């Protein structure tokens, strides 16, 4: 049984470092490459647009805030200018319901 003083601790650390460096190198193989390429083709099919225009994704994010504000303004103005029409339409629909002749007559 050996006490773990500073010098001994350094020796254990050195052995662990050596163990880490001696780890066996893995080999990935042809099947692995095939699977990676299959996933990349799938990815490309999904994101084909952004790969064809490099930097487009960054441009989209940079303009996202402006786009969101414009969308809000547009939605607000549509609601504001059409609210009167909606009321008229509702009234028209309710009148139509009122004038429907019951089937029993």
């Amino acid at each position, binding site marked *: 049984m050996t006490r773990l003083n500073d010098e001994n601790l350094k*020796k254990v*650390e050195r052995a662990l470092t050596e163990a*880490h460096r001696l780890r066996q190198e893995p080999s*990935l193989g042809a099947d692995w490459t095939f699977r990676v390429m299959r996933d990349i083709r799938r990815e490309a099919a999904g994101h084909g647009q952004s790969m064809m225009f490099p930097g487009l994704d960054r441009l989209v994010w940079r303009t996202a805030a402006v786009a969101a504000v414009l969308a809000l303004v547009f939605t607000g103005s549509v609601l504001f200018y059409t609210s009167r029409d909606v009321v008229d339409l509702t009234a028209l629909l309710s009148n139509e319901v009122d004038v429907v002749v019951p089937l029993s007559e």
Partner: protein
Amino acid sequence: MPGHVAAGCLALIGVQTLVSDDLEIIRRVLQGEIDSFAELIARYQQHVAKITNRHVPSDRVAEVAHDVFVRAYTSLSSFSGQTPFEHWLSGIAVRTCYDFWRARRREELPVSALTTEHQAWMDHVLAAESDDQFREEARRQEATELLQWALGHLSAENRLVLTLVHLDGYSVREAANMLGWNVVNVKVRAHRARQMLRTLLLERKRQEDDTTQR
């Protein structure tokens, strides 16, 4: 021209050719020739496997290396070409390993337990008198398992920094570049993580000594 200088020049020309080839392949991939990406995989799969093998368990290396190349492909348009592709890819590999441990931490998988053989290994190392004996002990399975046990007690951040700086031997600046963190953060973490490793080993040894004395 002396032989070693000529060999050095040829090696440099070789590296430069490889770098310009990489840029040409990347240009083709970005223009839609996706199959050209297989050339980059063939060139760098061993490099990526080597990095991932140092950070994740052996049975997960293929899966993590797979993720590294898919990530590299999806962010290929952000590759500026100012650094060699190999360096850029190394950063992605290290960050993918970091994400692997962060996800694993969330799953809260149990850390493997140590046996009396692991405990005895430390005594064997300390008793080793020659370099050969010392290396023989380092090659034993118990060494790797003890290291994994200790790393398993660290956070994903500390684990990664400890592995890069103290085990792989990268400088603090190199590790910071790979991780995309600032140098001070890596330096502080490297120091803290090493202290934690030492505390773990000391506690382990103390427990072992207590058990032996009883």
